[in-house]
């Protein structure tokens, strides 16, 4: 288990505190309204304070648990819902299966995330049909699709069909104005 995996609560608690502080800072220049009911910063201030409090509590709970030797963040006991024994076993089996699963394929996760981001930009700047065709083909290969000639041919037909149907469905059927792009 990496340090990050062991310290997710610490990191998320600290991030929550930082976000709460950022919210309080963002509304700090709001004029203080005399009647509290018409104060536009009332809710953001309450939320900012709540985030700081909860984030700090998460950090403290994590540190206390670590001191007691309880590293795992998953505390099922904190939900006072009596799960039947079988449900607990099913959850336990799921957890065991997850623990035994092979390591995360970061190459595929990263590759797909980049492909999605590039597609989200290119679809409305370059051309929806071309980008969709390229994305479906690339994403499928990133996910490990077989690269035999027959499989690639099927993929090409599938990608072309998805691009056409998505364009017709969203831009023709729903009458959404298509962006002006150099490519179709």
């Amino acid at each position: 288990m990496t340090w990050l995996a062991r310290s997710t609560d610490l990191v998320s608690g600290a991030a929550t505190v930082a976000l709460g502080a950022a919210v309080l800072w963002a509304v700090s220049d709001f004029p203080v309204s005399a009647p509290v009911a018409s104060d536009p910063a009332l809710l953001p201030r309450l939320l900012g304070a709540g985030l700081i409090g909860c984030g700090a509590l998460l950090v403290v709970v994590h540190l206390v648990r670590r001191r007691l030797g309880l590293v795992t963040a998953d505390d099922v006991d904190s939900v006072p819902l009596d799960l039947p024994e079988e449900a607990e076993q099913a959850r336990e089996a799921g957890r065991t299966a997850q623990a035994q699963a092979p390591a995360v394929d970061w190459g595929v996760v990263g590759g797909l995330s980049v492909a999605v981001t590039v597609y989200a930009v290119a679809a409305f700047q370059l051309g929806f049909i071309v980008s969709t065709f390229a994305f479906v083909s690339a994403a499928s290969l990133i996910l490990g699709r077989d690269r035999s000639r027959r499989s690639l041919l099927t993929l090409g037909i599938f990608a072309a069909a998805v691009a056409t149907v998505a364009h017709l469905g969203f831009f023709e059927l729903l009458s959404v104005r298509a962006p002006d792009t150099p490519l179709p």
Partner: protein
Amino acid sequence: MTVLAASGGSLYTEGWSLVATPTTLLLILVSVLVGMVVGAIPGLTANMSVAVLVPLTFTMSPTEAIAVLTGVWLGAMYGGTLPAILINMPGTPADLMSTIDGYPMSRRGEGGRAIGIGVLSSFLGGVFSVLVLGSAGPVLASFASNFGSAEYFAVALLGLSVIAFVSGSSMLKGIISALLGLLVGSIGRDVMTGQSRLTLDQQELYGGVDFIAVVVGIFGLSEVIEQVYARQHRLSERPQEVRRVWSAVKDVLPLRWVIARSSVIGTLVGAIPGAGPTIASVISYGTQKQLSKHPEKMGKGAPEGLSASDTANNAATGGSLLTTLSLGIPGDALTAILLGALIIQGVQPGPLLFENESALVSSIFISLLLANVCLLLIGMLGARHFAKVLNVPRTLLYPLIVVACIAGAYALNGSAFDVGVTLVAALVGFLFSRAGIPKAPLVLALILGPILESNLRRLLSLNDGDVLASAGTLATSPVGLPVLVVTAALFILPMVNAARERRRARAETDDESRRTRTRAREEH
């Protein structure tokens, strides 16, 4: 008066003219089918399928839109039972309990019978809850028409507290998720003063963050990335062949009391703001185990266990729609998405909906009933073919979902900005999963945030900004006080339980060390 006039039989007749068109009927059929296919693929949830399809309903009439979305919802709820029974992998979180008895049945060659029991139980539970919705909806709406800001604030707070309380492994994380949802919901121009809040000087944010763009990112795009993270794209399941689905018909009569009881439990639990089908099926299964004449058979392929969880799971749909339609307070994340879709259609759920749009409300009930009938027919006739859905290559399916998410986000307002919001929401959703923070409270808070804030500020205005006087109004309200007491109990109970657990653990440790010391002394 009008509300009462709209109650009873008219709710089941008035909307027929809206629903009984070839287009709407076809849409219901197709949406149930689509929902079943998506729900049958492990990891793809009902929330995801509904969220991804919301943009496609924009050009439809409100009746068609709600028919499509509820059809997909019901279909996905049932579809999730298939992998739960056949490969011991729940298609949706609400189907976790179906694996307990469904899979052992499948292992001993009774997969078809188990699926049949699941379909029939889901159908009967679903129909029961719709009938309750039809009769209790107008009554609740009539009751809620007297609600003021104090009552609405209290009920919205309860909904948020319940979901923060039950939706994840840690209540603290549930609260953080809800606070973040409220924060995102507060972005944009303040409705009372017009001042922009937390907009980072982005003009597109003045109108607030688009709810559907966030939902598509959180439940659609991020779930694809999560599936890839969990290496689900490499899975290929070969479930056993499904046979003798119809043999389940003769199981219904012996299971009639299980189905009746689970229908009531499912509908009641579903109606509690914040609770949902997963909780309903857990409670129903637990109750059945306590009441069963053969509790030793539960967990080893007992039809009653499967029936209890599947009935309650589907009955919760009508229950959660009850509070969504009559109070305007969504029961869970999925009804929050439906609520958002209705608002986009120009329909404002709440007590006035039953008064002003009784034909639309009626059409929703009829659509739900028809969707349940479609579920029964398709489920019984097509179960053999649906099992093959598990073989669909994920390498093609996931890119297809991504395209639907991105194009759908753009279609919301014809703006690439919403696509950016969806990408950010997807990243947040992925990080939430990694940090063990539940997503449902965020989505619910996003829709409940404006209700909470506007009613809180209205309450303060009515009391001239006096916080103590506003608290007094809340405390003296016959609805507000009990609701607030329950909300407070939700926060206090876990702390009391944790303290008791700690005391017990400490006592056990002390006992153990005392025994060890005594042993050591004796040995010495």
